[in-house]
């Protein structure tokens, strides 16, 4: 399938090298965005990509940096095609480095096809709106910010918060839900520490999920510029599995903050006009071209769900990285340092978290008929309780009314029993909703304005609704 050109254009005319940028003399026939091989004097090849061509020069971005490039002794070979990933269904269970080369000691992939790592945009008219609920078994997600197939939902975290454990729990629990062979995880590690990468691989292995996983690992010690391609490789692999093999692919990209840093570095080397905080003005578009690869296509079986993880510099949600990401993704799950300090796991900040695709994925036939009302009422009551917390820190609880004190207690109980759960505890959606009804029984029934009356009669413990003893959180 791979189109090989009959001759390879080669030049020895190198003009300038700095950082990861190499400038050559004009090369007739050089194509914009094509792959090049920079062959060092020792014969060792390095991968690169053309980022600008003109009659009298071309600019090449070299993966792995230009540190050992000798302007006199190197050759640059233009390969005549854009960067492609060899793909095959044998990729499942394999581990690759950030450039797509196997690092697990196994054989090379025998490709069924070569895919352009930038993918092709899905025609908006061919998309199928995401609407299938993914049960993660985590109440704070399933109950309040439900994830659906084909969605892109990032985790906004901070340094030192347990995002890796949350992600591992999601992979573990979402994977076992009766999907069997239809499920695949593609893990793209972008500039993560060796320990973090090892943690993920180990937890996948423990749950027996490794044979359904493809991993691309660029660790913190690997070249920065390589980080530009690692997530794109992961997405190309996911697209292959979803659109050709009909699998439900979940792509985890961690930590995308490192990707954005690499993009900034590259932009600075190219001497581009910087945008906010030095990040290039096109960062929105650049991230969007990756995250938009999530989705479903009408008439095809598979799906691509993307869950990027990023650490917010200084926990600042208005920092350009989380800010631009939030504008692209369909919501966000935000981890809170405050809840973490209170010892609550997962420390999910339910106010800042949001799943935009939720409304399509919940309700009768998908989760349960009372889900929408319950979720709105939980938000309303918890937000009331939080507002009162704020007031009571100033005026004390004495000057609050009886009703107010009930809401204060509700907020505490909500965090302790609903949000908080064990790292290996998997709650089905019924359990999650029943815990909510248990909590509602603390409140005056007349306050449950957001839930249709028929559901109050059916599910409220006071009405002898089908109360199941919900598993108490630890």
């Amino acid at each position, binding site marked *: 399938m791979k189109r090989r050109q009959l001759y390879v254009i080669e030049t020895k005319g190198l003009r300038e090298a700095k950082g990861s940028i190499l400038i050559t003399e004009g090369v007739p026939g050089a*194509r914009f965005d094509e792959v090049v091989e920079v062959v060092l004097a020792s014969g060792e090849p390095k991968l690169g990509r053309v980022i600008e061509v003109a009659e009298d020069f071309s600019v090449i971005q070299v993966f792995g940096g230009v540190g050992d490039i000798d302007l006199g002794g190197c050759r640059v070979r233009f390969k005549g095609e854009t960067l492609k990933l060899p793909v095959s269904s044998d990729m499942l269970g394999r581990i690759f480095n950030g450039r797509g080369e196997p690092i697990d000691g196994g054989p090379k992939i025998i490709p069924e096809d070569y895919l352009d790592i930038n993918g092709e945009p899905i025609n908006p008219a061919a998309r199928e709106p995401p609407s299938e609920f993914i049960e993660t078994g985590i109440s704070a997600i399933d109950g309040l910010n439900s994830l659906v197939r084909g969605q892109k939902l990032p985790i906004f975290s901070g340094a030192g918060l347990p995002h890796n454990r949350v992600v591992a729990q999601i992979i573990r629990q979402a994977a076992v839900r009766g999907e069997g062979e239809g499920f695949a995880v593609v893990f793209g590690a972008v500039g993560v520490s060796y320990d973090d990468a090892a943690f993920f691989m180990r937890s996948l292995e423990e749950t027996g999920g490794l044979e359904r996983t493809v991993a691309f690992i660029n660790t913190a010690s690997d070249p920065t510029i390589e980080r530009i391609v690692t997530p794109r490789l992961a997405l190309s692999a996911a697209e292959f599995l979803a659109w050709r093999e009909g699998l439900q692919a979940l792509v985890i990209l961690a930590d995308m903050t490192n990707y954005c840093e690499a993009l900034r570095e590259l932009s600075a080397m190219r001497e581009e006009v910087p945008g906010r905080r030095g990040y290039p*003005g096109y960062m929105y578009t650049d991230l969007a071209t990756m995250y938009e690869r999530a989705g479903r296509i009408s008439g095809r079986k598979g799906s691509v769900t993307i869950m990027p993880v990023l650490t917010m510099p200084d926990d600042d949600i208005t920092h350009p990285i989380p800010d631009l990401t939030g504008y692209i993704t369909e919501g966000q799950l935000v981890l809170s340092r405050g809840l973490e300090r209170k010892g609550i796991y997962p420390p999910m900040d339910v106010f800042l978290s949001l799943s935009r695709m939720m409304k399509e994925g919940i309700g009768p036939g998908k989760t349960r008929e009372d889900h929408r009302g319950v979720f709105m009422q939980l938000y309303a009551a918890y937000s009331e309780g939080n507002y009162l917390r704020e007031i009571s820190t100033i005026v004390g609880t004495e000057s609050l009314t009886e009703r107010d004190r009930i809401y204060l207690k509700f907020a505490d109980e909500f965090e302790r029993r609903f949000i908080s759960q064990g790292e290996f505890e998997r709650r089905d959606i019924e359990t999650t909703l029943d815990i909510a009804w248990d909590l509602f029984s603390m409140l005056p029934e007349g306050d449950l304005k957001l839930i249709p009356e028929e559901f109050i009669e059916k599910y409220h413990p006071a009405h002898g609704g089908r109360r199941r003893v919900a598993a108490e959180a630890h």
Partner: protein
Amino acid sequence: MGRIWKVSGPIVVADGMRGSRIHEVVEVGEQRLLGEIIGLEGDRATIQVYEDTSGLRVGDEVLGSGKPLVAELGPGLIGSIYDGLQKALISLKEDLGPFLKRGVKAKALNRERRWHFVPRVKRGDFVKGGDVIGVVQETPLVEHRIMIPPDVRGTVREVRGEGDYTVDEYVAILDGGQEIRMAHEWPVRRPRPYASRLDPSNLLVTGMRIMDYMFPMALGGKGAIPGGFGTGKTVALQQLARWAQTHVNIYIGCGERGNEMADVLKSFLELKEPKTGRPLMEKEIFIANTSNMPVVAREASVFLGITMAEYFRDMGYDVLLVADSTSRWAEAMREIGGRLEEMPGEEGFPAYLGSSLSSFYERSGRVRCLGNPERIGSVTVVGAVSPPGADFSEPVTQNTLRIVEALYSLDVALANRRHFPAISWLSSYSLYVDDVEEWWRANVGPEWKEMRNRALKILQEEAELQEIVRLVGPEALPERDKLTLLIARMIREDFLMQSAYTVDTYCSPKKAHLMMRTIMAFYDKAQRMMEAGAQVREIQGLPIVARIARMKEIPNEVFEERIEEIWAELEEGLVIG
């Protein structure tokens, strides 16, 4: 014909382009990618390419077309989904599968479909630009009026009889031999002419209480919805495109999410227009240029949309155009500006940001159309703005605020509390309040403006009281203020909060007015009870408070009779204890 000299991202510089014009459309390279000339110097042209430029080579051909970027206007627009260059996305999907390929061409209008044309002129009639020469029932909701293109005039030599024709066949011939077809082309960057401009005077009924009642938009007006991520910009715009009482709606998804676009498309097939019960798709046009589609086409998508809006306005229709999001277009300008090494203005945006934005918003308006018969049409524009970090001081928001007359400011705190629509009543405004007062008086009731102002005043008082509550606690307030807080809360939760997904999704102005009257009647009653010694705590616990809270669930059609029951309860007098 020229040759590529340099490629840098979406910008191509070509040699040998003498004789070309600025804004001329060109085809670049082997794949004939579409581009537009944005700069000329000697025989060297700077071209922005609307498609991904990967694989272009120095020396590749560049072909001029001699034409600027045009929109094709005619029957078949309604119900279509276009990309920013007016390629029909549904036919691309049918021909090429689910992924978009580069360099493919797709005609905007269906060439085979025959439309039933009914002539309105006869041989020997003198016609000029804007005259309606016939009509086509394009969808059950839209009668497409076939007009003489604005710059054409003459005497009708021949007109085809009533019958079915394609857009490529002529329907009339003028004395100069000029054939008139049902479709014609118009440059997207050139505003379509009209006879005269009129002041806005009618309410654009949106079905959203915070807009219709509190901050009304007028037909022919222009407004902006800025908000940080997750504050509900897209849902607000979707609601507008769904329920606005107009003849034609145009929805531009510019640099936004594909899944959302799919969701919107699906819902428009399922949802029914409230008055006629027909599928909403029969009055909508979609332009989808999602964030992973080429950046340069974002600008084209905005101007393509407004040109289509003007075209339907010229037929004498009220058209609403919503653009989500203008910030993505502004970012595209910044990216292109950066590649051209222009001197950047504020935050890297080009210095002409403001004038570009106004060249779009200023094409809104209510006008007397060109030609016979006499008609009045309007284009209302509402654009979303996505300020980085929800900071409204950034250049796109500020430049937009200088142009628009209505601001619907989305508040992060409200969204976090799940108060939707999260339009802040403290910082939004509309300069159309006086313009539409007469509309309310004639169509709903005389006391609209008075009640609106009273409600806003209560909300303002609430904001001030809450400052005090933060210091001394709610119990320390006098009873009078506690009642104000209760009423303000009812206005917020029982009136302003409106779900996009229940029966409350479209609220008629009549229902909105009766709801507000109910809350105000309760306020008056509660004040009298308080004078008689009742405590706010007791009033708050009355069953009628819960009944008022649920009144939004009553459908529009039966609202008037059902609300009577609540009023009867209020009239009979409420008894404490």
